[in-house]
């Protein structure tokens, strides 16, 4: 469960009430300006985070890429102990990756993330990753960005709505700076955290992501996290190998997710005192793997992804590394050590991609492009299958590689991996984690899959008389009586459609002059225009004011294709 002890029962009051009134445009402008500040602060925080991780890595494991014996075992284990102490007694909310905490802020706590969480996440994740735990810095960066945004939003007395949205704005900034790729970060936050596109929010997310990347690039350079090799797509027949990569990636992601699904609750169910030693034990196991000859599994592993992309490992080694990384990351993650899963996911993907490419080179050397291309596509595959962010996965590969010639293999492999993984592991990893934590956060995947009910699903054929507004009330009454209708639909050119009840007609005929037309009985305003493809939401907004609404044809709004009433809507929802 997410510890909620330091969260106010009622979310912080919206202080806007006491503030002088401002126009919506002013509010919007200020929000956008604030998004830039959030981007700058998040970018700076992520730069400091990266420097701290690297500094700790050098201090704890030494400056060589292959740490020496005593350090390789002791550093992750002892630092794991320190991290556990910090998490248990100082920063209880920093466990895990940070994506779900940001979603919780959005959906549960009205955008509230304590600033202490940012500090705790920063320190604990830096220690864990720097000491060699198999975790990445991206998700913590996302949470640090969200915490900064939330703190600023509260301090600047934003409205409740804006405060709720500001955490994802910060999350996008943090992730963009960590990944050095703004498009992927924006897409990920929209795809995985928010789940919808709105113009106002998108503007803020884009501004924050771009400003954070600008800041991060100023300090860390514009190079991607790994050097991208020459990317080649040789022939369409190579697509078969990429399809195989998609399938292999899907199965690997399912193994990865299932392992977390099985072990995480078990580790959490152990007595509380054991939590003090779980990160240390994970560190010890990772140290042992490294000591056994595969130090590549330690830390985020970007340098080794770089090597995989440059054909620096034989395919067998890459396959082994993918397996060991799954193992190491599962140990690190289920032990409650704070840190992200993005980097390990990319690592596993790169190694699997490289391995599949290596096997293809063995059997069909004339067919294949570079191993680097396979490693790059592999990253996208795992991203799509494990993190279940298919759009982000495609754009991430394209953005990181800067090469659109591989779009076909990327789309094919990612889609296959996503579909297979969704079949074998119906609950996405972030939803799984939130369920294990006792939170029922909305599933973005479910939202995407949810069938939207439309007007065409509820409308019925036109079963009332349709009359021109210029005919007499008497004539209209006669027609209504003939068809035994209680309401008639009136075509009141050029103003639109309206309706009039038989009772009103009867009254008018009894009291009014002989030549009284139906037009004089119509009320203002006229009926809203509804089309078959509108969602039922749209119809519901107006339906209470009218006995029914005419559904017009998109190409000819005077042509009525059906009617919709409250009963019809209810029936459609009840189906």
């Amino acid at each position: 469960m997410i510890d909620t002890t330091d969260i106010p029962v009622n979310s912080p009051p919206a202080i806007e009430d006491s503030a002088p009134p401002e126009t919506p445009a002013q509010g919007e402008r200020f929000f956008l300006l604030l998004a830039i500040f959030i981007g700058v602060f998040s970018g700076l925080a992520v730069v400091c985070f990266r420097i701290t991780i690297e500094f700790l890595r050098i201090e704890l494991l030494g400056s060589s890429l292959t740490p020496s014996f005593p350090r390789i075992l002791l550093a992750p284990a002892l630092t794991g102990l320190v991290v556990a102490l910090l998490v248990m007694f100082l920063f209880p909310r920093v466990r895990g990756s940070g994506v779900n905490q940001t979603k919780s802020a959005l959906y549960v706590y009205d955008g509230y993330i304590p600033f202490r969480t940012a500090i705790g996440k920063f320190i604990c994740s830096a220690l864990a990753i720097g000491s060699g735990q198999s975790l990445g810095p991206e998700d913590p960066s996302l949470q640090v960005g969200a915490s900064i945004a939330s703190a600023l939003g509260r301090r600047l007395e934003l409205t409740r709505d804006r405060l709720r949205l500001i955490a994802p704005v910060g999350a996008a900034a943090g992730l963009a700076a960590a990944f050095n790729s703004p498009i992927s970060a924006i897409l990920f936050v929209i795809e995985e955290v928010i789940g919808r596109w709105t113009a106002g929010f998108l503007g803020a997310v884009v501004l924050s992501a771009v400003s954070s990347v600008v800041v991060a690039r100023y300090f860390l350079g514009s190079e991607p996290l790994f050097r991208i090799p020459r990317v080649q797509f040789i022939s369409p027949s190579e697509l078969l190998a990429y399809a195989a990569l998609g399938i292999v990636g899907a199965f690997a992601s399912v193994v990865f997710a299932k392992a977390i699904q099985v072990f995480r609750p078990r580790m959490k169910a152990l007595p509380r005192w054991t939590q003090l030693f779980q990160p240390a034990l994970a560190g010890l196991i990772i140290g042992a793997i490294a000591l056994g000859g595969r130090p590549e599994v330690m830390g985020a592993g970007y340098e080794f992804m770089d090597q995989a992309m440059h054909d620096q490992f034989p395919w067998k080694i890459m396959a082994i590394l993918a397996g060991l990384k799954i193992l190491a990351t599962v140990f690190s993650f289920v032990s409650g050590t704070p840190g992200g899963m993005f980097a390990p996911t990319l690592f596993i993907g790169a190694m699997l991609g490289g391995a599949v490419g290596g096997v293809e080179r063995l059997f069909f050397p004339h067919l294949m492009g570079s191993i680097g291309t396979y490693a790059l596509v592999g990253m996208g595959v795992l991203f799509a299958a494990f993190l279940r962010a298919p759009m982000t996965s495609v754009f991430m590969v394209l953005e990181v590689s800067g090469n659109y010639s591989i779009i076909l293999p990327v789309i094919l492999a990612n889609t296959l991996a996503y579909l297979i993984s969704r079949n074998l592991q119906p609950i996405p990893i972030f939803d799984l984690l939130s369920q294990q934590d006792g939170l029922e956060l909305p599933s973005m995947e479910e939202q995407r899959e949810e069938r939207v009910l439309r007007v065409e699903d509820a409308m019925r054929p036109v079963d009332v008389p349709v009359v021109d507004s210029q005919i007499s009330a008497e004539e209209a009454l006669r027609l209504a009586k003939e068809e035994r209708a209680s309401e008639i639909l009136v075509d009141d050119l050029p103003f639109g459609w309206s309706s009039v009840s038989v009772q009103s007609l009867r009254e008018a005929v009894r009291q009014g002059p002989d030549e009284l037309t139906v037009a004089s009985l119509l009320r203002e305003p006229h009926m809203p225009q509804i089309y078959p493809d509108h969602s039922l939401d749209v119809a519901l907004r107006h339906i209470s004011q009218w006995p029914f609404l005419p559904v017009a044809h998109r190409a000819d709004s005077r042509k009525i294709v059906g009617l919709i009433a409250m009963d019809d809507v209810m029936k459609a929802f009840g189906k």
Partner: protein
Amino acid sequence: MKTPPQRTWASRVRAVKQRIKALRRPIYVVALSLLAVAFFAFTFTINRRFEKKRRDLSAYWFERGQEELDQSRPHDAIPDLRAALFYSHQNPRYLFNLARALAAANRVPEARSYLLNLLEEEPGSGSINLELARLAARDNDANQTRRYFSSAIYGAWDNDPVLKRQQVRQELISFLITADLKTQAHGELVSYTAEMPNTPNAQLWVARTFTKLGDDRSALDFYVEASQTNRRDVTALLGAGWAAFRLGRYREALEYFKGASALHDDPSTSQMIELVSSVIELNPFDSSIPATERRHRLILAMSIADQRLQACAEAHVVDLDAVGGDPLQLAHSQWTYLNKQVRGTYNASGLVQLLSPVASLVTSIEQKTGCGPPSANDQAMLRIYQGGGELQR
């Protein structure tokens, strides 16, 4: 006229509060800007410090790796160069040296991968193209090797580009010879001679390479040039002697061998002097000798060939006087016929006409195997008459 109501302290405070509230957003923006500047300055400071640490570490690991590479320990150099690269991403020098270490460790695909990336950044780099050419040569990919070597020759070099280009062309020529692409190698060698340095070593290298390519005439020119540049160069004199000898320019060859022997007495050089002297003495193709001398040398040649024929008949137990189908018997009957002709001819033109059939017969007899070791005269005969037939000027 009414006087305005006196403002109380409370109303003044309220007014100030109202104004502050109205200015709330601008104040926030200013405060955030100041905070951002402070945070930026802090990050800048720690980043600069850390950058220095990274630079120091990358330099340390690079020096270590470079040292190991220079000591031909590429397997030790690779992790160190990788560490250097970790602290200095994208450093082309580190990448290049890592690629060289990988190539030296026989990890060709890995080395090539790095080099191709570097080449994308610097397509005109001479050194990257050269390394790629070497890798392609290892794979016996002649087309790629030539392509990369050519790019290296015409590519950019940081220092001493002329010398580097000459060295690359030398390497290309050696590769072409190894790959048995002699025509291309000859073309490149001729190009090289246009730009080569005027040093005995370069001249000797060119001369030797021409020899390998079978172009003794050019080889002789460069050996001579080398011996003229350094008059005490025994190798050049010996090379010139051999080239002249193979060209049939025996008197020149004798001069060069004698010159070499004078500088460095060596049994093999003395043997050559003896052989060349014999050749000169026995050579009937020399246009400067009178008809009597030519007749004498032809008779001598027939006599040496007869001795060889007798030795062969003895070894193979063949009766040369009998008439049969044995090649030795056939050769003997040809010898008998030609011997009569030689002995019966005295005029100059008749003797010149006999040079060709005598050369053919003597060569066929001297080339026979299984007749015991050839004497110095036999060797001289073979040298003189093999391929001979016309007068030498």
